[in-house]
């Protein structure tokens, strides 16, 4: 009986180890998703943003509704997108008051943060990759250093 208990304990241990190993996932760390330069796209008449180089295609309707309370407000307008080193998508454009931060998942982009920049709207915003940050410019002296969560550094005229 005692020996059968010992065998049972060993078998149980082996079973647990086997279960644990089958549940583990392969993870590659320190991946740089950053685009070297932002993508500047004009929203098509079908209200879509299409980027050929990065093979990104999405509707602009939800973004326009959120920013301008009009789902068609972005048609024919310029939208600037930059993917950060972390893989988050930073989206903004002229007259935007905010920079939108999206995280990708299967077949969708989910808003993780909306960084309020200017209550009157930006004039000529631009996004630069400054790892680990994303740099937001609007004119020569306006600068914000952004992460997915917050505005780190401000330089105003």
């Amino acid at each position: 009986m005692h020996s059968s208990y010992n065998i049972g304990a060993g078998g149980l241990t082996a079973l647990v180890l086997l279960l644990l190993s089958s549940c583990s996932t392969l993870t590659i760390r320190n991946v740089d998703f950053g685009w070297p330069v932002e993508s500047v796209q004009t929203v098509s008449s079908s209200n879509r943003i299409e980027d050929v180089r990065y093979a990104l295609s999405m509707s602009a309707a939800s973004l326009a509704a959120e920013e301008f309370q009009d789902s068609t407000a972005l048609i024919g307008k310029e939208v600037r997108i930059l993917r950060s080193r972390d893989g988050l998508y930073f989206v903004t454009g002229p007259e935007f008051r905010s920079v939108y931060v999206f995280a990708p998942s299967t077949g969708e982009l989910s808003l993780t943060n909306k960084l309020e920049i200017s209550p009157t709207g930006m004039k000529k915003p631009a996004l630069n990759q400054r790892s680990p940050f994303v740099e937001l410019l609007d004119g020569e002296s306006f600068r914000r250093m952004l992460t997915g969560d917050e505005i780190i550094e401000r330089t105003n005229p």
Partner: protein
Amino acid sequence: MSSRHSLFLLLCFVSFSVAAQTRQSDFETKAAFEQTWRALKSSIASASTTAELDSLKGRIDIFEQDYQSHRAFLDKAVYPETFRTVIAGLREEVRQTYDRVFLIQTQGVRIDELEIQLASLIQNLDSLSVQRNSILQELQNLRRSNSRMQETIKRLTANLEARDELIFALVDTVFKGYDMNVDKAREVQLDALSRRLDKVNAVDRIYDIAANNIRILELLRLEGKDYSPLINQYRRFRQRWDALRDRLNAAYADAAAARTAKQGKGKKGAQAPGEEIQPGAQVDSILAVWDTSLLGSFWGGLYNEFISEEILIRPFDDATSFSTSITAYVDSMKANESDASHFVSDVWKERIDKHWREPLSLDAVLGRTEYAALDKKVSELGEKKVDSKFLGYLAIIVVVLGSAWLFFSRRSKSGRVTPPPAPADGTGSN
């Protein structure tokens, strides 16, 4: 390279250099870099002297310095190119173009000399055009004075021949130096050739000469002998044009293709596939009109020679139908044994042979052999008539002489006194 192009490039440099220094958007930096890159490529492609290329080398150095600080960024931003490959590519293009331009300047074409030669030829051509207009005006005033008109026609013909010589010499000069089959130099050569063809306005000038000749035909009241120089002039013009047409069409098409390729590398070409550029087509059509007018006038004038002398022959409008018509007329005269003296002597010998033989004997019209055959046929018709008359007279003379001989021979026979035979016994009759 035009001064406008140079100015544009300079402005690009200034503005983009400023942008590179004061810029803050990476996107703008990339766009400015790419725009300057494209402008430099375009300038290199259109450069036609080594001096321009030397200047471009300096600009590439400045371009490299301006963007050196963005090198790491540009290596990623202009993927699949890198900053180094962009600069190296520009320098390689300068080197290749330098080779081509140097080849043309040293071995190919003495462009400056040819330009002077062209300018002189164009000036001569223009002065001949003025002279021709003055002769044409004179011709219109002289329509009633036949002898002075003939003299004016001679001057006009000489003027037209000089113009023909000059226009083809002009086009030959344009093509001079562009016959080398050197692929390296081909694109630059075609570009320069196209510019020179546009400058001399070759197709329009050739068209103009043909159109003027048609106008002159309408103005002139031509006689048989006048046609020889005009037909010869047309034939020479036609042969020269035939030799030139394909070359000219090919040059225009190649130059247009090279321009399209240069302007729209990577873009859809402005010229649809299969579309052929044939600037010579308009000259072909006017030459067809010239041919019809000249030969129509010639055959019409010749036919009138017969009709005005009431020789009713079948109408004709080319060499074959003329030959057939004359042969049929001669045959009918023979068959009917009609008197052909008027046709042979007054019309054929006096008018056709004297005034129309020369143009008819031209290879482009009837040809020497064919004319000689027709002339023999017509002459035989005359000779036959003379022979029969002669034979008639001869027969009459023979008959008269025969009759006379018979008559006299009989008379002499009947009038002879025959002495009576002597009596056999030696006594007289008393």
